[in-house]
C-alpha cells in the first residue's frame, strides 16, 4: 500500500508553491481587480510556460501528461495562493470536459491551446438559482445552434469559449462548445461574492455550436461534476490550510493580557478542531485523487465526501481566521476576507452541500443494493 503522492508530483507541488509565494504578494488579487481586467494577464502565460496548465493533458495534445494526481497538487496551491486567473474554469472544467467527452478532432483543436494558455475555456451549466438537474437546463440545442441564458458563467470575460450544457432535439442533455466570438452570444458582467472569480450572464441566441460527441446525456454532466469536485476539493483544502496558517501566525504574534493570544485555550481548541477537520478533508481528497486517477467505481462517493468535508473545513477556517484577527480581520486590506469569499464561492459552484449530500446517500444506497445482489 502506498497512500502518498509520488516524489515527482510532490516535488512539482513544492515548485508551484515556491513560485507562487515568490511571484505574488499576498492578496495580490485585491489590487489586480482595480485594473478592471478580467484576470492577471502576466501571470497566466507564466503558469502555462512552467507546464502547469497542461499537467493532466496528455503529451499528444500538448500537455505534460503527468496525470490528475499532479493536477490535484496544483489545485491545492491555487487554493492557497489565490492567483487571479481562470485556472479552475479553463482546466478543471473546460479542458476536463473535452478530454473526457470530445472527439479526436476536438481534442487536437482545443487541448494544445488550453495547455499553453493561448485558449481559455469555461463551463456554463447553471441557469440561475438551484442545484444541477436536467430539468433545470432550458437552454436548447437545435440545428447546430444554442439558444438560452446561462448564469452565472465564471470567467466568461476571460474565456474564448464555453462548454455549455443544453437540451438537444432528443430531449437528452448534452455538452456543446460555443465560441465567445460567435454571432448571437452576449456577456453581461455580474457582481460576484468572490472578487477573484468574476462572472457573467451569457445569452445565446441561435449561436453556432459543436457537440462533444461522447456527452450524450445527463450522466456525462454528473461525471464531469464528480471529477471537478475532487479538484475543487483540493483547492478548498489549500484554502483551509492557508487561512488556518494565517490565523495561527497572527495568534502567536498578537499579545493581549500580557501573553500571546495563542496561549488562550479558547483559541487553541478552535485551531485544533480546524486542524483536525482539515486533515480529515485532506485524507478524503487524497482518496478522491486516487479514484480520479484510477477512474475507480468509487469516484462519485469519493468526490462527494471530498467536496463536503473540504468545503466545510475551508469555511470554518476562513470565518474563524477573521474572528482571530479581531478588528483587523474585518478590513479590506487584510487577506482574511479573500479566503472567506473563496470558501463560499467553492461551496456553491457545482451545486449546494444539500445536493452533494443527497447524491452521496443515493449513491451509497445503490452501491449497497449491488453489494447485496
Amino acid at each position, binding site marked *: 500500500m*502506498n497512500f502518498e503522492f509520488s516524489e515527482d508530483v510532490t516535488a512539482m507541488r513544492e515548485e508551484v508553491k515556491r513560485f507562487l509565494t515568490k511571484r505574488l504578494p499576498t492578496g495580490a488579487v485585491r489590487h489586480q481587480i482595480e485594473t478592471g481586467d478580467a484576470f492577471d494577464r502576466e501571470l497566466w502565460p507564466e503558469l502555462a510556460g512552467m507546464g502547469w496548465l497542461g499537467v493532466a493533458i496528455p503529451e499528444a495534445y500538448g500537455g505534460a501528461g503527468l496525470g490528475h494526481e499532479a493536477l490535484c497538487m496544483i489545485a491545492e496551491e491555487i487554493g492557497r495562493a489565490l492567483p487571479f486567473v481562470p485556472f479552475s474554469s479553463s482546466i478543471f472544467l473546460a479542458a476536463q470536459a473535452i478530454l473526457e467527452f470530445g472527439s479526436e478532432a476536438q481534442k487536437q483543436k482545443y487541448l494544445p491551446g488550453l495547455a499553453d494558455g493561448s485558449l481559455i475555456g469555461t463551463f456554463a451549466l447553471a441557469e440561475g438559482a438551484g442545484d444541477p438537474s436536467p430539468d433545470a437546463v432550458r437552454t436548447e440545442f437545435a440545428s447546430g445552434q444554442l439558444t438560452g441564458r446561462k448564469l452565472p458563467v465564471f470567467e466568461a470575460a476571460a474565456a474564448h469559449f464555453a462548454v455549455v450544457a443544453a437540451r438537444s432535439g432528443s430531449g437528452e442533455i448534452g455538452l456543446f462548445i460555443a465560441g465567445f466570438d460567435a454571432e448571437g452570444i452576449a456577456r453581461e458582467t455580474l457582481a460576484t461574492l468572490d472578487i477573484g472569480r468574476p462572472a457573467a450572464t451569457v445569452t445565446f441566441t441561435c449561436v453556432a455550436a459543436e457537440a462533444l460527441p461522447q456527452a450524450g446525456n445527463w450522466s456525462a454532466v454528473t461525471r464531469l461534476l464528480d471529477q471537478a469536485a475532487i479538484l475543487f476539493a483540493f483547492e478548498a483544502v489549500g484554502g483551509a490550510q492557508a487561512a488556518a496558517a494565517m490565523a495561527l501566525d497572527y495568534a502567536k504574534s498578537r499579545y493581549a493580557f500580557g501573553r500571546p493570544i495563542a*496561549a488562550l485555550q479558547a483559541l*487553541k*481548541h478552535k485551531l485544533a478542531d480546524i486542524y483536525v477537520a482539515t486533515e480529515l*478533508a485532506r*485524507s478524503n481528497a487524497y482518496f478522491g485523487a486516487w479514484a480520479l486517477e484510477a477512474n475507480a467505481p468509487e469516484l462519485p462517493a469519493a468526490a462527494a*465526501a471530498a467536496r*463536503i*468535508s473540504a468545503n466545510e473545513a475551508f469555511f470554518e477556517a476562513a470565518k474563524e481566521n477573521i474572528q482571530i484577527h479581531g478588528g483587523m480581520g474585518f478590513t479590506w486590506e487584510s487577506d482574511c476576507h479573500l479566503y472567506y469569499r473563496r470558501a463560499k464561492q467553492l461551496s456553491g459552484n457545482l451545486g449546494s452541500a444539500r445536493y452533494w449530500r443527497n447524491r452521496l446517500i443515493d449513491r*451509497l444506497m445503490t452501491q449497497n443494493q449491488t453489494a447485496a445482489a
Partner: protein
Amino acid sequence: MDFNDTPEEAAFRAEARAFLNANAVLKSEHSRTSGSRAFNAEDVALSKAWQGKKAEAGFAGFHWPKKYGGREGTQMQAIIFAQEEEKYLVPPGIFNQGVGMALPTIMSCGTQAQIDRYARPALFGEEVWCQLFSEPAAGSDLAGLRTRGARDGDDWVVNGQKVWTSNAHFSQFAMLVARSNPDVPKHQGLTFFILDMATPGVDVRRIKQISGTSNFCEVFLTDVRIPDSQRLGAVGDGWKVAMTMLANERFTVGQAEGPDFDDIFRLAKLVMLDDAPAVNDAAVREKLVNWFCQAQGLKYTRLRMQTALSRGKTPGPEASIAKLVSATKLQEIAAFGVDLLGQAGAVMDSETAPFDAWFQNALLYAPGKRIAGGTDEILRNIIAERVLKMPADMRVDKDMPFNKIPAGPR
C-alpha cells in the same frame, strides 16, 4: 498511490489469514464488537489462551526481539495482522497494557533482569498487566499524583489510592507511579515501579460503571512493600518513564470501537419515519453524511500514517486525531440510533431493541471513550501545543515544591 500490498506484505497477509482460518471463526455480518459487558473469568482464560496461541505462531510482539519471543518484524506486519484479526470472532484483547505499553517501556528503561523476567510471560498471555496511574486527585494532571513511595532499606513502602484502573481485578502485575519526594516540583519527585498485584496491602475493589457493569477498579495501597529491584528507571525519573509509556500508548489506543457509519446507515434504511425509510429524510441524511465523511476521513488518515510508517517515519502527536474524532462520532451515532427508534428508543431489551440493543449499549459506554487515555480537551491541548506549536498553558504549579501546591476542597 495504490492500495496493493507489496509482495512481502501480501505474503505476510496470506500467512496471517491461514493462521486465523485454522484457529478462529470469521465474524458474520451481524456480529458486533462488545464493550458493554464485564469480562468474566472465562473471557480472561480464553483471552490468555488466544494470546498464547498467537505468540507461539509468531503473531504477537511483531517488532520485539526474537530472544523475547517476538518476531523482529515490522510495524506494518502488526497493522496487517490487526486488520485481518478484526474480521474474526476472537476473545477480547486484555494485553494492550502489558504487551503494548508495559513491556516496551521495560525494554527501553528497565534492567536486563526485568526484561528477562517479564517479557515472555506477557507476550505469551500468561501474565496480565494493568496501569496504576490515575488517582482521585490526579487524572489529566497525572504529575499531581499523591501516592507516596518511601524508601525503607532495600524496599519501598507505598501508601495511597489509585482509581479507574482497567482490568486490575484480574491482573498479575501493574505499572505504578508514586511520589518519592514531595519536597521538589511535581514532575521531579516521581518514581516508577513494577508492582506484583499479589503483594500484601494491595486491595482491589471493582467500580460499577454507568452501564452497571464493571471493567475498572479502585486500588488501595497500604504499606505495600516493593523491592528496589522492581523500580523502573532512576529514583525521581518516574515522569520520564511514564512519558515513554504514554508514547507507546498512542500506538495502542486507536479508534473507539462500536456502531459506526455502516451500522447507523443500515438502521436508517430499516426504520420507517412517516411511512418512508428514515434514510429518505433530509435531516437524517445530513447527519449520515457527516459521519460518512468523518469515518472515511479517519480511514484515509490512518492509511496516510501507515504509508509514513512503512517509510520508516514515526507517527507523532497527529495520531491523537483518531481517538478525538472517533469517540465523539461513536457517542453521536449511538445517540442518534436511539433517537431514530422514537418511542421505543429507550428500550434496551436485547430481544426487542434492534441489533441486540447495540446503540443503547454504546450510548452508555461512549462517554468513557472521551475520557480514557486522554480526555477530548487534553487531546486538543496536545494538538495545539505539539502539532501547531501554540504556547503551553500557564502552569502555576510547575516550579513549586509539590507539598506547597494548593489543592481544592476534597
